[in-house]
């Protein structure tokens, strides 16, 4: 069986600065992988390469055997056409640090936009799904509210509903609790935990070590553009093999 996600020798440069120096990673259906590491280690960049929010200069990323973003024909590597990339982006769902809800649309309209415009559903079908997922994140009663009328935690839950309603094969979470007040962090983590229990495949970039420990089936520690260490969360957190990880864990809060 092909892996859900297959990253091979991923290289990414910003100008002359190489931020990803050859990352390899495979992920099976239903896995929940947390990516930890200090800022600048490349964890967010890696996530953003998977849905082509960042271009990458070397290596391949495949979802369900389908090469993302680039195709190689006759030895030459070419960016796929925009339309094709847009279609591939819908294979994944993404939640952002800053939520990025569309401020001029209600919560329900935020969730419905992709369903209607990308999945070509009727408005009625889209509304049924939007209500289902808003209910799932505990915000059905707020479906007609605008983002400006919601708290940060509520906005992030709507943003997660918006991504997950598209029925992606893989969810990408990019530091989704970093912009939240501490008392709002938990409601968002609970939603993600629920999705994990449903068997959703997820890649989670996070600074919440306790959460990573509890929810993940595997943890990846990024260090200076490479995977520094990866494995079972218990072993990683309790018996780190590398000095870098041990150091990193010492400076991060694990509560």
């Amino acid at each position, binding site marked *: 069986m092909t892996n859900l996600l297959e990253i091979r020798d991923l290289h990414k440069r910003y100008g002359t600065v190489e931020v990803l120096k050859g990352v390899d990673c495979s992920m099976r259906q239903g896995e929940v992988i947390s990516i930890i590491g200090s800022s600048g280690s490349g964890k967010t960049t890696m996530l953003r390469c998977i*849905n*082509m*929010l960042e271009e990458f200069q070397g290596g391949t990323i495949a979802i369900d055997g389908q090469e993302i973003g680039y195709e190689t024909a006759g030895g030459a590597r070419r960016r796929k056409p*925009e*339309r094709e990339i*847009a*279609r591939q*982006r*819908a294979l*994944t*769902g*993404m939640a*952002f640090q*800053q939520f*990025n*809800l*569309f*401020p*001029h649309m209600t919560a329900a309209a935020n969730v419905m*936009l*992709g369903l209607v*415009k*990308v999945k070509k559903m009727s408005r009625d079908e889209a509304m049924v799904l939007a209500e289902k997922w808003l209910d799932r994140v505990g915000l059905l009663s707020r479906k007609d509210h*605008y983002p*400006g*009328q919601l708290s940060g935690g509520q906005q992030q839950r709507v*943003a997660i509903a*918006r*991504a997950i309603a*598209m029925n992606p094969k893989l969810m990408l979470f990019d530091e989704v609790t970093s912009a939240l007040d501490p008392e709002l962090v938990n409601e968002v983590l609970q939603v993600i935990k629920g999705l994990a229990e449903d068997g959703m495949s997820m890649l989670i970039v996070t600074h919440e070590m306790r959460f990573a420990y509890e929810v993940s089936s595997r943890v990846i520690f990024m260090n200076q553009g490479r995977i520094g260490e990866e494995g079972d969360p218990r072993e990683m957190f309790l018996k780190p093999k590398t000095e870098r990880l041990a150091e990193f864990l010492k400076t991060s809060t694990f509560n």
Partner: protein
Amino acid sequence: MDFSFLDQLWLARIPLLKGLGVSVSISLLSIVVGTVLGVFVGLALVYGLRPVKWIVRGYTDFIRGTPVLVLVLASYYVLSTIGIDLGPFQAGVLALAVFCSSHVGELVRGALQSIPKGQTEAAKAIGLTFAQTFAYVLGPQALRQALPAWVNTAAEMVKASTLLSIIGVSELLLRTQEVISRTFMSLEFYFFAGFLYFVINYGIERFGRYVERKTAVPS
């Protein structure tokens, strides 16, 4: 001969109304044409390829750095020397539309660039194409953002329409001056013309406020 101002006003009603009509036509035409052009200018400034950007940037900087009166005169007198013969009305509207387009272009550029990058990223992430992102995410936000400044620009165009009197377009100001040269009631008729311009611009401003309120996003 002892006519009061109101008598004179009544006698002059037809030319003044015609002048008002011409002023409104000039303003409307230049706002509409200028806005349509300006949207393209703004899009080119934000999304254009580099050479396109440079050319359009040169255009807007040049136009915005030139007094409107100079544009009006150039449009009327200079274009004819290169074989483009426009009547005063057409030449004047062209000048104002060009002027308007450079300002609207800047408004559109500013509005689009004020939208956080995360909006585009979120739209991409759910699989929207660029055209869809623009139509449903960026466009509606940019419109709201640009509306107040656009209303100001529209009011400026109404005021700038008076400059066309210099090249002999019989708009409200020129008609008013003609009436004054007959009646010598300069104070009264200038005030009256000023009042009409105020009414138009106040109307535009109220309308702008109304649209702003109607389209405001609750928060």
